[in-house]
């Protein structure tokens, strides 16, 4: 490990890391924006869910490099749309992780809670936004953490089609037979992924004040879980 090289190239490493984060996080945000309505629809209309679930397990199995190269004829590897060649597949992976979590989270809302909200005069949409989605939040965050870490790490595979953020350090290090570059790439990706994971834990803590300090909702006495 040649630390001199690391400190001498700190600027370039930072810009590769920024690019890696950008390519990884756009899909996570897009995936979340699509997964929530898709999950809500799957819970409302049960018949939507089985095909959605099959689709997610198929997408999940497809190797990332194969998905990237399938998009090359449409979005290319150079030019303005080349980022989409990565962003679209990574969004699909995020969806495959998140949709089942959104559905499980919404299904975990106890029926009495749903009925109380209705009795208090909450309409369908307001009940969803104010009651059901907040209760689903911890489960959705669990999926979000998995999707985020995987996305940050998967971006580097994009380097095989010339656009992979920190993955550049792997191909460049290989061509120059310079392991330091590869250690730096692996280290930075792991650090970014774990930092993003910690940030999500913090966000979840902020978003679910009712779960803090052990004040977990106890099951109603007499009711078995």
């Amino acid at each position, binding site marked *: 490990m040649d630390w001199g090289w690391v400190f001498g190239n700190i600027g370039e490493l930072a810009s590769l890391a920024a690019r890696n984060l950008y390519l990884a996080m756009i899909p996570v945000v897009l995936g979340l924006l699509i997964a929530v309505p898709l999950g809500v629809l799957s819970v409302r209309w049960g018949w939507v869910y089985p095909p959605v679930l099959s689709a997610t397990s198929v997408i999940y*199995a497809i*190797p*990332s*490099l*194969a998905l990237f190269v*399938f998009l090359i004829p449409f979005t290319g590897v150079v030019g303005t749309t080349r980022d989409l060649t990565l962003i679209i597949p990574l969004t699909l992976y995020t969806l495959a992780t998140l949709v089942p979590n959104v559905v499980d989270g919404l299904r975990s809302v106890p029926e009495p809670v749903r009925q109380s909200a209705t009795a208090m005069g909450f309409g369908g949409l307001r009940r969803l936004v104010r009651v059901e989605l907040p209760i689903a939040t911890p489960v959705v965050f669990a999926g979000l953490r998995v999707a985020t870490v995987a996305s940050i790490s998967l971006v580097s595979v994009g380097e*095989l089609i010339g656009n992979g953020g920190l993955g550049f350090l792997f191909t460049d290090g290989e061509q120059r037979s310079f392991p330091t570059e590869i250690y730096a790439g*692996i280290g930075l990706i*792991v650090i970014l992924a774990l930092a993003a994971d910690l940030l999500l834990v913090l966000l979840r803590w902020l978003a679910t004040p009712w779960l803090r300090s052990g004040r977990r909702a106890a099951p109603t006495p007499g009711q078995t879980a």
Partner: protein
Amino acid sequence: MNAFQSAWAWLTQPQQWLGPDGIPARLVQHLEYTGIAVAVAALIALPLGLLIGHTGRGSLVIVTLANLGRALPTLGLVVLAFLISNGSPAAVLVALVVLAIPPILVDTYEGVRGVDPDVKDAARGMGMTAGQTLLRAEIPMAMPLILLGLRTAAIQIVATATIAAYIGLGGLGRYIIDGLSEDNYAMVAGGAVVVVALALAVQVVFAGIRRLAVPAGIRQQAQAS
């Protein structure tokens, strides 16, 4: 689409199905790498996961591994193994094994950990020793998750072996990597189609194993995964 027509044309050329560079030979290589890596990883991770899940000691190690396993960039690990071993394909297999261990270990642990304590008490009450409890109660009940871990590992390794063609490993990734460097998109897309078919076949095979290896009573309880 034109791109897919060219992929189809490439796939249906007779010479693609013959000789040492043909699809059957490459497929066998790919299956060899995947089979060896998953088998070695299972030999290490299954006993360890059973032990930690049964005793409950070392849970922190599992949580750390689960996070780290997802964060590790596959391309980086493969290139690193290749570089520090002076270009040995066996070293690349070691990288594949390393990547296959976390999903097997984590899911085996969670499967055994999640067995209802009442069931374990009942097993002990029937006079089973610790070993019998593990073999006849905990493992069968953990089987759905153990198989899920093995499947995740197998799919991960199919994808990573594809990527490892970048440093000269054989297998189906050769078509994608060579096609990209020769600017032969028909070959790239044709190779990607075969890789996807293999990944989906792995899914189907594991669905079959699940039917055979999971006791009927547990199969009904376990949620579809």
